């Protein structure tokens, strides 16, 4: 992480406009040259209900929230107390509330944070069409040192469509907030950043996933809407046609995955996006893609489970179903991005691997990462474009063997339209030509081949993000969005003189035993960090890898995020 950061929350009931104000703040901070990371929390309501935006701004790229927030602004307090556990505060924190909108919820008061009154509603009324959320925005901007000229530029650009009056009203309310907060106690003020250029992006994890799909060559998407994966599809729906692709809203998840199997069988790299309940419905056909060797990519933006769980909140508890959910022996790929930015790379890589290895790839992102917006350096292009091996010319009279038992395990794949190569793709066990077979020898040969192509492939160094000290005696093992706080913990520990390394696993399956052992050389103890109740990742590592003798596991369920401080504490106490 490095650099200085400031963390704040804006909360309020539906219609209070905290998400709007948060987005404006993020945009302004980005233009001011700062980096940013914003997650949201909302209740289960369809519209309205309470909402909170949690924002961290800093002078360097950010991938995690801090242990505590410096500032909590409640535009009103209706039901906001429900989020208390997700908004850790301390005695050094400030809570700003509107005295006209009721008492600060006791659960926040208990943190010992200093309380400050700001009559947002009343101040908003002093200007024509003023709104309390803009007063709150002004107060925060003033307190953290965001200059007015940048904010005014953002307001003008964003509210252009609403007309001059709306812009004037927002500016007036914003100024009222800045003024009112002039004497408030200090929160960290960030030094001026380098003004942003097009080399910097503002992007959500779900958008990055969509972009990764397109960069990887995906041109057909079929999916059924589900929170929190829908934004992947909403970004792709208008983007795909621009690059010659198509998106179909299917009738359900069973249709979604089978449509993309059809599209991919036709030669077009294909993808679907869903969340846990949808992934559960898709598992049978994931096995079909594995058996028929049709490349597909399934994005699972995980949410709190089991069953329909908590649709709007994050957890990392679909690892078991992603790895083990398929019936029979069905080797497939499971990958996980390690940050918002990495959603792009990992999705693109997943498409590349699925196409190269002709199998199913599941990409596990989650709500926290998918719906987080980050201001980050522009994502550099990488050259992964799905490469599906095509069959060579056939000699006269030779029958095309779609499932040829090759040394690499990858069998060259014809696509419809190629004359002379007609075959039937089959989920039933089959022989090399694709004819259904119940013979033990055919089954053994095809099982071996489908496993071999995954285990024999060279995944390079992308299997994990490894950072920290080469000669570390302690390692943090983690995956997915827990890698963000782990990265920050690593920096804090190293700053305190510890020799630590972080291994954030990107390729969950197939396992990479040699690379893993190499990465752990010299390491005497590992802390396994994840966001699940049962420690799914910990158990998976125990089952698949040799771990050092000293292992500790830090895991708790969602929606509570893993905090860097908790990781630091676990390792420090170990010393």
């Amino acid at each position, binding site marked *: 992480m490095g650099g200085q950061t400031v963390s704040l929350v804006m909360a309020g009931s539906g219609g209070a406009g905290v998400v709007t104000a948060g987005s404006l703040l993020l945009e302004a901070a980005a233009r001011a040259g700062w980096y940013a990371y914003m997650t949201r929390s909302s209740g289960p309501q369809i519209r309205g209900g309470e909402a909170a935006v949690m924002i961290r701004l800093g002078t360097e790229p950010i991938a995690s929230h801090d242990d505590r927030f410096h500032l909590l602004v409640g535009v009103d307090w209706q039901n906001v107390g429900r989020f208390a556990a997700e908004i850790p505060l301390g005695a050094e924190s400030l809570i700003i509330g509107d005295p006209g909108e009721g008492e600060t919820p006791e659960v926040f008061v208990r943190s010992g944070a200093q309380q400050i009154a700001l009559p947002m509603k009343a101040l908003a009324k002093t200007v024509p069409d003023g709104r309390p959320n803009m007063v709150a925005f002004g107060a925060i901007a003033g307190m953290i040192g965001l200059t007015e000229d940048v904010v005014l530029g953002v307001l003008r650009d964003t509210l252009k469509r609403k007309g001059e009056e709306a812009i004037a009203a927002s500016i007036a309310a914003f100024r009222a907030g800045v003024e009112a907060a002039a004497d408030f106690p200090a929160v960290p003020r960030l030094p001026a950043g380098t003004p942003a250029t097009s080399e910097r992006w503002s992007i959500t994890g779900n958008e990055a996933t969509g972009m990764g799909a397109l960069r990887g060559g995906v*041109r057909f998407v079929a999916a059924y809407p589900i929170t929190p994966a829908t934004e992947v599809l909403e970004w792709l729906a208008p983007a795909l046609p621009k690059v*010659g692709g198509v998106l179909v809203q299917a009738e*359900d998840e069973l249709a979604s995955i089978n449509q993309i199997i059809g*599209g991919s069988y*036709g*030669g*077009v790299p294909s993808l679907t996006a869903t969340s846990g309940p949808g992934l559960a419905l898709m598992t049978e056909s994931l096995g079909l893609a594995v058996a028929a060797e049709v490349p597909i990519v399934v994005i699972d933006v995980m949410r709190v489970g089991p069953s329909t769980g908590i649709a709007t909140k994050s957890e990392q508890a679909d690892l078991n179903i992603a790895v083990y959910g398929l019936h029979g022996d069905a080797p497939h790929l499971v990958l996980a991005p390690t940050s918002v930015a990495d959603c792009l790379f990992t999705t693109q890589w997943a498409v590349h691997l699925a196409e190269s290895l002709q199998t199913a790839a599941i990409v596990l992102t989650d709500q926290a990462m998918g719906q987080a917006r980050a201001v980050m350096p522009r994502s550099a292009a990488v050259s992964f474009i799905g490469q599906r091996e095509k069959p060579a010319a056939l000699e006269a009279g030779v029958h095309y063997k779609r499932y040829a038992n090759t040394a690499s395990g990858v069998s060259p794949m014809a696509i*419809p*339209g190629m004359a002379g190569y007609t075959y039937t793709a*089959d989920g039933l066990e089959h022989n090399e030509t694709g004819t259904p077979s119940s013979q033990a020898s055919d089954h053994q040969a095809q099982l071996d081949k489908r496993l071999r192509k995954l285990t024999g492939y060279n995944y390079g160094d992308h299997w994990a993000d490894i950072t920290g000290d080469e000669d570390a005696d302690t390692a943090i093992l983690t995956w997915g969005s827990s890698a963000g706080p782990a990265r920050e913990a690593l920096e804090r520990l190293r700053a305190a003189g510890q020799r630590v390394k972080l291994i954030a696993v990107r390729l969950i399956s197939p396992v990479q035993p040699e690379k893993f052992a190499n990465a752990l050389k010299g390491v005497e103890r590992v802390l396994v960090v994840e966001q699940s109740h049962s420690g799914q990742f910990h158990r998976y590592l125990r089952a698949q890898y040799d771990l050092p003798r000293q292992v500790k596991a830090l895991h708790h369920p969602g929606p509570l995020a893993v905090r860097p401080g908790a990781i630091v504490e676990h390792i420090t106490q170990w010393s």
Partner: protein
Amino acid sequence: MDACVQQRDYTAKDYKSDVKPIWCPGCGDYSVLAAITRALATLQLAPENVAVVSGIGCSSRIPAYTSVYGFHGVHGRALPVATGLKIARPDLTVLVTGGDGDGFSIGGNHFLHACRRNVDLTYIVMDNQVYGMTKGQASPTTEPDWEGSKLTPDGAGIESFHPLVVALAAGANFIARCSSSDPNNVADIITQAIRHPGFSLVQVLSPCVTFRPEQQEWKHMVRTAVVDVTDDAARAARRLMTDDGFNVGKVLYKGDRPAYQPEAKGAAAVADLEADFAL
């Protein structure tokens, strides 16, 4: 284009593979397979430009018995596979083959939405009113008092499903019924169905002589429907609601709804989309 295709004169044999069917002797599906290959020969379609997609069941084995591109998937999901294939590859002729259980039970929701989505597919359902591959259980089209299954020894006790009426209600654009006892007629109707743009449903009465031996009588019970094809869905529905299911040999309904085919025509580079995110 036509001249080019006709350079090679395809015969029905060119569409048949050398894989021996697993079907029982006397199964109606043999003549449906023959009818499909005959229809493809009539249309002189290059085998590599045709795909046959299926789910699970006796009749779903058809792709392996053809020498066009085939896809044999999982139970009930043939229509979505075919939908994805046709949308991704509109240049292909896509047929879907299956049975009453695959299409109307486990695949029921996809059946409704395929009718309504109207992608240019030809769906051939071999209806034998029984689950043959699992050795004789009631299917959605089995009559409620059939006591031939150990699973429902007192009969299924529920009303049988009316696929053609449901298809009409769901928006299907081409609906026909025929009998495997007249393979020439089946071939003719499949030919018409392939030519018709949008989703076409062809129900073929195809007896299961093993688990419903009484269906051998179907060849004497079927009669050529004495109706003309209509484009009036209400009229077609009335007819179908009142007939006994043995009026065959005809296209019963033909609409003119345009086929659904989202076009992939943009030519931008992926990098052009980066502007969405740049500050």
